[in-house]
């Protein structure tokens, strides 16, 4: 489903934004109210790919607002008859995606308006890195080497899905699939980053009950450590520390940034991380 016309040809900055929503309730509208300006502010062609179970009652209104030329980007809506869980939902959207940059997010997240440009620039300054995420709470200033890029918005290079092609559906309906995927990237020797400049927020609205969430997390942990080994987090942490220079180790694993090659007409480089 395309609610507004395609925008130009794809480019090296083209972005597929993969958004999944378990319950297309008012929270999806809330999420879109923050996300659409962020997509509009992105410095390159964007396709918003949204997967929802059933028919989103209010979400379409928000999407139609994206028809404003100022907010022009493509919208692809995938409806499934029942909820299939987050890992399968992202995998589904990945099969339809071909842009060189891919962002993944759930509708629980409030994304800052400049998030996507900043994350892309962060990855461009770290050519080996395949994923960069925004934290859900403020963290010490800088771009950090991490095991897990967080629960907020995560931007991936397309190559991330060549290294680890899919999210593991064992973590359905959704608990540790992004950690699992990030570990796969890390074990392949590709850095994963977290950028303090892109602090996201958690939106209100219905979410899994405490008991259900805990059961899912317990089950997810067993699957995670069973798959990777009980000492995987120690192994990953040591690997990161070993790869960083001494100064970075004592500064919260802050990554020294390199200047990206600026394409013609690009926006001014963002401020260097502290």
């Amino acid at each position, binding site marked *: 489903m395309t609610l507004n016309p395609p925008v130009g040809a794809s480019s090296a900055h083209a972005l597929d934004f993969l958004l999944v929503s378990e319950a297309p309730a008012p929270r999806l509208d809330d999420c879109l109210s923050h996300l659409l300006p962020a997509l509009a502010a992105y410095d390159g062609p964007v396709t918003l790919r949204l997967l929802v179970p059933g028919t989103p009652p209010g979400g379409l209104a928000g999407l139609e607002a994206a028809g404003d030329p100022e907010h022009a980007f493509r919208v692809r809506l995938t409806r*499934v*008859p*029942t*909820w*299939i*869980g987050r890992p*399968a939902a992202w*995998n*589904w959207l990945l*099969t*339809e995606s071909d842009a060189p940059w891919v962002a993944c997010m759930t509708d629980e997240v409030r994304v800052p308006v400049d998030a996507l440009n900043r994350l892309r620039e962060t990855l461009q300054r770290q050519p080996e890195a395949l994923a960069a995420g925004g934290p859900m709470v403020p963290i010490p200033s800088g771009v950090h080497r991490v095991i897990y890029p967080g629960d907020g918005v995560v931007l991936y290079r397309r190559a991330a899905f060549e290294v680890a092609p*899919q999210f593991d*559906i*064992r973590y*359905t*309906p959704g608990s540790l699939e992004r950690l699992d995927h990030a570990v796969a990237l890390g074990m392949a020797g590709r850095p994963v980053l977290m950028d303090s400049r892109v602090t996201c927020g958690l939106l209100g609205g*219905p*979410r899994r*009950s*405490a*008991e*259900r969430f*805990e*059961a*899912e997390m*317990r*089950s*997810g*942990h*067993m*699957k995670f*450590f*069973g*798959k990777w080994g009980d000492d995987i987090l120690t192994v990953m942490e040591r690997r990161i520390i070993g790869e960083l220079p001494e100064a970075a180790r004592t500064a919260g694993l802050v990554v020294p940034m390199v200047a990206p090659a600026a394409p013609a007409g690009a926006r001014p480089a963002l401020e260097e991380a502290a």
Partner: protein
Amino acid sequence: MIAPRDISLVITGLDPAVPLNELLNSCGLPVSGPGAIDIVVVDEHPAQGWAPAPMPPEGVRVVPGEGRRPAAAFNAGLELARGAFVARLDAGVRPFTSGWLLALLEAMEENTDVGALGCLQIALDARIVNAGRRLVSGLGVTSPRADLGRGENDLGQYDAPRPVDAVSGGLALYRRAALDAIGQLDDSYLTPGLADDDLGVALWTKGWRVLCLGAVKVRVTGAAAIAAAGPVRPDGEDLSYWRERWGFDAQYPDPQQVRRLWGSTPLCRDLGATLVGEAFAAGSYARTAGGDAEHPPVDILIPTFNSRAWLERCLESLADTDYPAVTLTVLDNGSTDDTAEFLQGFGERLAARGKSIGFRSVRIPVNVGYPAGMNWLLSITDAPLVARCDDDIVVPPHWLDHLVGTLRRHPYAGAVAPKVLNYGEPGTLQFGDIRIWPVNNYNHLVPDEGQCDILTRTTHACGACVVYRRRVFEVAGPYDIGFSPSQLDDLDHFIAVRAAGYDILYDGRVAVQHKINSGADRSRKAQSSHAANFGRLTGKWGDNAFEILESSIDRGGRRETFPAG
């Protein structure tokens, strides 16, 4: 509008350390002036001196209740209470919804057949203790699941008034006429909370409804109140007394027994005809898809993923099913082998061979797992009966006719499963009559010498081939996708079906063959996934669910002698 003079409040469970005035103020109760209500306080600690110093407010009457059980203390207050509506407040709970009494009274006024009205109990950690109790189910009063909403966050999901079997007595509003109809609270129980459960059952059997109004919220703070609100662990005397009083086992309830005893009363509102479904009961299914009264239409549902090697033989055998109204629907779960090409031509090949069986396939781009795949298939089909079939089974032609016949003869059976033999080794059992408590006994790899050719009630059956009433998925819910990609999703759903009050039947008089594929993976990754799913299962249903479900069958009759409902 109910006048203040028609309202009484009985307060029990006082803590000597908390002055009565402070309690009344914290509850926002009018104790003087025109809006004052009749308040009776049961003093269970007269020797400790909270009363008469400080003196109770004017209009508050005090009755001694030393050494009495909570139900007896309330009964003592009830004798003095003058109102047509009697609120009960245990001092160990604190209502924190402003206007809570008015809200309860309005709900009571709007529902003239309600005898008791409870509220949402919330623990100190902000999670729900209960939103009412569900006692009359397959899990009984000792299961943590008897407490509706236990452990959940309060998101307003229980705000609207809803029927429940019983409400906790921490804060409740009773209609005097209803209490008069049943006498008073039975104070024979030693177990905290069980007298409240007893009251709920008594009200329902006398035609009064019990509701929980979750919009009124109380915080459970006192130790005694916490004990009363926690999972019920009755002692032996209490259980015997309950059985004597109500005729069924509170701990191991057999819904069949409950239906026989109380089927004509609203106590069985969730265990009666609602389980069967109007369409199936009235035979209206016969109007669709070529079915008739004896052969309701059946949707055979098969999720498949990269099983091309087995799928053809499976579908060929299913296509040979000797049954007049069958549609075969296959969900290609993102297979990367040549399953899609095979399925594309399969329907045409069936038609060319003159097969009358309906066939369609649906392809999705990724593997969503078995439970989500089954839910997908359920959402796009509509026959009154549903057969869940793995893609690696082989069935005899008469399998469906036999299993549907069994289901028809047992109206409260929600599902029936056949004997399962090892594919390629038909002389050995893969799954016979399964027990999951006190030990797991699947009869796995045992020579098939007819020892499992029986009809029994069960809790677990092999999920490779099961025939359900579709109604089951409305009452007990869909499959839990948390068990993705597979393993134990079938048992989890069987427990939900049993908890809803259905029987599950094992009918070993018909056998199918099954090649274990996905379950045969013994890698560390697969084994940890299986273990995690098992942990999820016990966490979801409580550690004693297996014992409750299996024991209730043993007590009520397991084999062919069991009642047909």
